[in-house]
């Protein structure tokens, strides 16, 4: 088995708008191991979302190599990429991005629908995933009937339902108040503890602090890549640290 979940080599991404070229990424090399919890920070326009899109196989790099879970994805066609997104990746977006007319249960089970899982198994697994994020009793609420934090938890349940290797979150707490952010962050923490690879884009130093590694971007390049103070600590001390802001 490969221990490296994400392996980016000299990734360049150039956007062309008319005659103007924007280099959103100018040679990013980044390696993330399985089970890591990485925060990506940087000023607006530094290329964070672009990097996430590349990692999430939503966008192809202009130059460079990308291996996800050992697979060279640059060679794959649309159908194969869709399959990778379906099976290996879980997305959490800033704006929750739930289907508006669809209840929580169906939102959560949508990836299983595309994975051609039977309706019965879809329901069962969605129910379990909702229970994991503490929303077992909200299965038949539509997004508009849920609070922001609840919506984000539905989104997390949806991202996790296919048991993906990597969980990607672009500003998951950007639209949430402090208390709700805290809920989401502790959910991430427990996911991390259970062995998931998590990559989070954030503007918020406090959010970044929860990760065990922070990558800072500026103008499409990596400015710094540092472990957080508790990055090397054992799980026990992480829990301890987590308890401090709450008291």
């Amino acid at each position: 088995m490969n221990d490296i979940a994400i392996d980016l080599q000299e990734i360049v991404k150039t956007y062309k708008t008319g005659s103007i070229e924007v280099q959103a990424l100018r040679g990013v090399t980044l390696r993330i191991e399985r089970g890591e919890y990485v925060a990506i920070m940087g000023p607006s326009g530094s290329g964070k979302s672009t990097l996430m899109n590349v990692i999430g196989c939503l966008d192809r790099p202009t130059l460079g190599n990308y291996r996800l879970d050992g697979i060279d994805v640059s060679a794959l066609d649309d159908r194969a990429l869709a399959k990778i997104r379906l099976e290996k990746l879980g997305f959490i977006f800033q704006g929750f991005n739930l289907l508006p007319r669809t209840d929580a249960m169906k939102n959560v089970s949508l990836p299983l629908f595309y994975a051609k899982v039977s309706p019965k198994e879809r329901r069962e697994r969605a129910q379990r995933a909702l229970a994991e994020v503490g929303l077992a009793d909200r299965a038949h609420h539509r997004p508009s009937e849920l609070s922001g934090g609840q919506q984000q938890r539905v989104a997390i349940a949806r991202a996790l339902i296919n048991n993906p290797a990597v969980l990607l979150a672009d500003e998951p707490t950007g639209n949430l108040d402090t208390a709700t952010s805290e809920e989401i962050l502790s959910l991430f923490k427990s996911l991390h503890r259970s062995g998931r690879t998590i990559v989070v884009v954030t503007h918020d130093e406090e959010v970044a602090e929860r990760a065990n590694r922070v990558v800072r971007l500026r103008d499409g390049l990596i400015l710094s890549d540092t472990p957080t103070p508790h990055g090397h600590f054992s799980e026990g001390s992480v829990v301890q640290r987590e308890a401090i802001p709450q008291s």
Partner: protein
Amino acid sequence: MVDYIRETLELMQANLTRTVLTLVGLVVGVAAIISIQVAAAGMAAAVNGAFRGINMNTFFIFPKSTQGSTQRANLGLSDLKLLDRNVPGVETAIPFGQTRTIVSAGHQHIMLKFGGESYRRFSTAPVVAGHAITRSDVENATPVCVLSAKAYKRLFPHAADPETVLGQSVYVGPKRYVVAGILGPATLSTASLGFDINNDVVIPYTTFYNDYQRGRPLFGIQVLGSRDATLATLEANAKRVLSDAHGGSIYQTFDFGFFTKKVDGFFGVIGTIVGAVGAISLLVAGIGIMNILFVSVSERTREIGIRRAIGASRATILIQFFVEAFVLAFSGSLIGMLAGLGIGELAQQILIARISGTIAALPWTQAILLATLFATIVTLVFGTLPALRAASVDPIEALRYE
């Protein structure tokens, strides 16, 4: 697939007004095309039914009115025998005689159609009492008559039973005829087409000749062909035989094919018009559906983005929008089909049932096939572009979209 269909239905419900407006065109188009089919089928059955009341192998032959010597062309009794003997397939030929006249019985004086017939019957209405004209009636030119159901009812309104009328007298002017038989109602007749060769009061053609046509040339000859003879051949031969006998005079024939052709032609024209209207409304409907799908694609760009990000491939999105187009087109076609069958049935009840007394069965299978065909065509022709646009939505752009 079921999920796609359910989702589309929910969507249609959520935008009910828009959906209804979109489907109106399709409903109208399909309804028009299917209703005219039903009506045409009914009409065809009615026309066939109408002619079933008489022997279809009947034709009439007349001297052409515009020719050199009308004198030479005049027909006489001898021509009846000529046709009988020299034209193969002729069962009988009689002088054509039919008038509208006052017929009296007791205190009843009724304007009725009155004419001559042979013992070989031209009409197929059943005999309910007594008997039809017999061979000896014809040979002896006896003063007997056979009454149609209508004549019986109007001349003898107080009769308890047709049997009681047999042997009673009926008068045309001073002439007296004894009732020999009563006919039942001809369930089907050409009357409703504006032309009825069935008479209300029938006497032996020889009697008719003696009483009304003696000493004058025959107006025309009515010929009954045998069942297996073809009319066209019969008519051609009859014309030739008469022409030879009358020094090259010209004769013209007339049969019911003329009517059938006329009715067919009428429905051909109506069918073309309705077909054109249907085609145009299908086009408009298709464009409407295309429009609603385009709107749906742009309204749901973000949703498409989410689906793509989650793991739906372009092909999956394409299928989803095709299903949506098909559900729209199919529900429109289905409603149109039901409406069309309903209108067709109504047309049959109101118009055609009066003519023939029968109604053709609704062509369900044909209608369902047609509706499915329309739905499929509309889906493929007008669903492709929106579906392709949906599939080409860039998930990154879509997710940025607020």
